[in-house]
C-alpha cells in the first residue's frame, strides 16, 4: 500500500499543480505537502524493510535493503530540494529570469522526475526500471532548459542525445539479460527470477550484455568517458534540480548497475565486473581530479566532484571486502553532502548571477550564513576529518590497499589535487572583500532552513549512524558480498 501511495501522491500533486498551479502560493503548498507525504510513505517503506528485510507488492514492486537505502536518500533529497526550490524559484521570478508559467512547469516536471525515480527504485522488473530512468531524462531535459537561453538549450540538447544513446545501449543490455531468462516461461520477469537462473546463463553473452548495461546506466551515472553531458548540465540547470540529479538520480543509476552486477557475477564470476569497476572508477577519479584543480566555474567544479565521487563508489565495489561497505556509506554521504553543496550554491548563484569563481567574492559578507555553511560543505565533500566522507573514503582505501595498492595510492594523490583545487576556489570565494553593488545579508529564511536541516543531518551522521541505516548497510553489503 505504501508503495502505491509513494507513486500516487506525486501524481496527484502533478494533476493539482496543472489545474490550480497558476497561483504561486497554491503551487508551492501543493508541492511542499506532496514532498512531506512522499517522505512519510518512503519512510514507512524503509521501516518495513528494516523490520521484515523486504517489502513487496507482488509481483510488480519489491524493496530490499539496498533499494530501501536509495529510496530513503531519494525522498530526503526530494523534500529538501522541493522546500529549497520554493525560495529559488521565487527569487528567479522576482529577478524576471523566469515567468510564472515556467515556474509552474518546473514544479510539475520536478514531481514527474521524482515519481519516475521512485518507480525505478521500487519496481521488480528491469524493463520498468529502464522506462522510469528514461522518463527522468525526458523531464530533466526541460528543466535544464529552465532559463531558455541559447546556452541552456545547447546543454539540454547535449544531455538529451548523449543520455538517449546511452540508455538505448542500456536497453540492449537489458534485452540480452532478459533473453537469458527465457527458460522461466514468464512475460513479467523480476530481478529475483533472473538471479535464480543466472547460473545457467551464457557467460560470454552476459559479458556483452553487462558491458552494454555499464555503458547505458554509466552514462546516466556520469562516469568517465560517458560524463561529457554532466558539467554543462550542472552548469545550466536550476540548482535544486541539479541537487536531485547529483544527490538522487546518480544513486538510482548505481542501483541499476549493481542489480545487473549481482546477476552477472553469478554467471561470469566477480573478476569481470570488478575490473570494469576499477577501470571506470580509476579514470573517473583521475580525470575529474585533474580538472577540478584547474576549474574556474564553481558549478562545473561541483559537477566534476560528482564524477569523482561516482568513481570512488565504483572503486569501492571494485576493491571488494570492506571497500563495498565504504562505497555504500560513501553513496549516503555523497548524496546528502552534494545536494547540500548544490543548494548552497544556488543561494550564491542567485545573489551573484554568475557561476564564475573569480566573480564571486566576499561570500562571508554578502551571505554570512551561506558562507559559513559553504566552508563546511567544502570540508565535508573533500573528505576532511572528522566528517563522514573521510570515513567512507577510509573504508574504500582500506579495501584498496589489500589488493590494489598502486591504484589506491594514485587515487589518494588525486584526492589531494581535488582538495587543493577546492581549497583555492573556496578561499577566493569566501575570504575576499565583498565587491561593491552586491547586496549584503541573507535573502530570507526559506533559503536557509532546508540547507540548515541538511547540515545538521550531515553533522549527526558523520558521528552517529542510526541503527536502521547500519542494518540496511550491512544487509546491502551482505547481498553484494555473498554473490561476489
Amino acid at each position, binding site marked *: 500500500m505504501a508503495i502505491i501511495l509513494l507513486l500516487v501522491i506525486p501524481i496527484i500533486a502533478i494533476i493539482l499543480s496543472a489545474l490550480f498551479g497558476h497561483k504561486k502560493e497554491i503551487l508551492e503548498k501543493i508541492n511542499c505537502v506532496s514532498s512531506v507525504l512522499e517522505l512519510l510513505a518512503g519512510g514507512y517503506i524503509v521501516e518495513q524493510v528494516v523490520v521484515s528485510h523486504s517489502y513487496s507488492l507482488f509481483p510488480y514492486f519489491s524493496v530490499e535493503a539496498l533499494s530501501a537505502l536509495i529510496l530513503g536518500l531519494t525522498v530526503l533529497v526530494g523534500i529538501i530540494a522541493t522546500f529549497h526550490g520554493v525560495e529559488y524559484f521565487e527569487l528567479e521570478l522576482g529577478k524576471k529570469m523566469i515567468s510564472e508559467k515556467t515556474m509552474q512547469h518546473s514544479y510539475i516536471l520536478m514531481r514527474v522526475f521524482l515519481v519516475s525515480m521512485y518507480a525505478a527504485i521500487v519496481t521488480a522488473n528491469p*524493463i520498468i526500471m529502464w522506462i522510469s530512468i528514461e522518463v527522468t531524462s525526458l523531464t530533466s531535459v526541460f528543466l535544464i532548459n529552465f532559463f531558455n537561453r541559447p546556452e541552456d538549450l545547447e546543454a539540454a*540538447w547535449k544531455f538529451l542525445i548523449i543520455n538517449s544513446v546511452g540508455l538505448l545501449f542500456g536497453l540492449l543490455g537489458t534485452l540480452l539479460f532478459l533473453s537469458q531468462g527465457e527458460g522461466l516461461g514468464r512475460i513479467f520477469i523480476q530481478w529475483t527470477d533472473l538471479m535464480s537462473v543466472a547460473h545457467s546463463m*551464457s557467460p560470454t553473452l552476459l559479458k556483452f550484455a553487462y558491458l552494454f548495461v555499464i555503458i547505458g546506466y554509466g552514462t546516466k551515472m556520469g562516469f568517465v568517458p560517458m560524463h561529457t553531458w554532466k558539467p554543462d548540465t550542472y552548469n545550466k540547470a536550476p540548482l535544486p534540480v541539479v541537487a536531485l540529479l547529483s544527490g538522487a538520480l546518480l544513486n538510482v543509476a548505481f542501483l541499476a548497475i549493481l542489480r545487473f552486477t549481482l546477476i552477472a557475477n553469478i554467471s561470469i564470476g566477480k573478476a569481470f565486473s570488478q575490473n570494469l569497476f576499477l577501470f571506470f572508477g580509476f579514470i573517473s577519479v583521475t580525470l575529474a581530479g585533474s580538472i577540478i584543480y584547474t576549474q574556474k566555474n564553481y558549478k562545473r567544479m561541483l559537477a566534476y566532484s560528482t564524477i569523482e565521487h561516482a568513481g570512488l563508489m565504483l572503486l569501492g565495489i571494485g576493491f571488494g571486502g570492506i571497500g563495498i561497505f565504504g562505497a555504500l556509506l560513501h553513496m549516503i554521504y555523497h548524496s546528502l553532502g552534494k545536494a547540500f553543496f548544490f543548494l548552497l550554491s544556488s543561494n550564491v548563484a542567485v545573489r551573484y548571477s554568475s557561476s564564475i569563481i573569480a566573480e564571486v567574492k566576499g561570500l562571508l559578507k554578502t551571505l554570512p550564513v551561506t558562507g559559513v555553511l559553504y566552508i563546511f560543505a567544502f570540508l565535508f565533500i573533500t573528505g576532511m576529518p572528522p566528517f563522514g566522507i573521510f570515513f567512507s573514503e577510509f573504508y574504500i582505501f582500506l579495501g584498496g590497499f589489500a589488493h590494489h595498492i598502486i591504484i589506491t595510492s594514485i587515487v589518494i594523490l588525486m584526492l589531494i589535487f581535488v582538495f587543493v583545487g577546492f581549497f583555492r576556489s573556496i578561499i577566493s570565494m569566501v575570504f575576499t572583500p565583498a565587491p561593491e553593488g552586491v547586496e549584503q545579508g541573507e535573502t530570507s529564511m526559506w533559503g536557509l532552513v532546508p540547507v540548515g536541516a541538511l547540515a545538521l543531518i550531515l553533522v549527526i551522521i558523520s558521528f552517529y549512524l542510526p541503527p536502521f541505516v547500519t542494518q540496511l548497510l550491512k544487509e546491502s553489503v551482505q547481498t553484494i558480498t555473498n554473490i561476489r
Partner: protein
Amino acid sequence: MINTVFNLQLLCASLIMLSIILMHIVKKNSTLVTAYILQSLGLVVLLGSGAIQEKSFGLLVVTAIMFVIKIIVAPSLFIRLIKKSHLNLSASTYLNIPLTLSILLGILVFSQSDILTPLLTLLPVIPQIKTILISGILMSLFLIINRKGALSQIIGVLSLENTIFVFGIFLGVRQLSALEIGLLFDVFFWIVVSSVFVTMIYRNFGSFDISKLNQLKK
C-alpha cells in the same frame, strides 16, 4: 511456411539495412524522413508477422501502436517541422560521402568478425540477418555522430532504437504487452520532446545545424 518466414525476415532486415545506408547519403531532410518510414515499416512487418505466427492479440496491439507512432505520428511531426522551417536541405555530414561509405563498409566487415561470434550465436536466424543487426546498430550510432543536423541526429537515435527493437524481436524476448506498450509510449514522448527541442534550436539559431551550437564553449 518456414521458408516464407525466413524470406520475410531477410526482406525486412535488408530493408532496415538499406534505409540506414540511405540515411547516411541523403541530403534532403524529407528523404531522411522517408528512409525512417521505410525502416519502421520493416520493423512493423517483422513484429506483425510474429504476432500472426504466434496468434498473439497482445503483440498485434503492440504492432498497431508501433505503426501509429513510428509510421504516422513521428514522420508527420518531422515533415511539419521541415515545412515550418523551410529547411528541406539537411545540414551536411562531418565526413564526405566516400569517407562515410568507407566507414560503413568497415562496420560491415567488423560485424562479421570473430569477436562478435558469442553474441551472434545466440540469435536463431541466418548469418546474413545477424550481420545486418550488428552493423545496423553500429551504423545508426555512426549516423548520430556524423550528421550535423539536429533532425538527422533524432532520426539517428530512432534508427538505433529500431535496430535494437529488431534485435529484441530476433532474440525472442517477450514481455508483458503492457510493458511493450509502455516502451512505445516512452518512444512517443521521446519523439515529441526531441521535436520540441529541434523547433527551439531552429528558433534560437535559425538552423538545424548543431555545429552552430557553440555557446557553451564561450
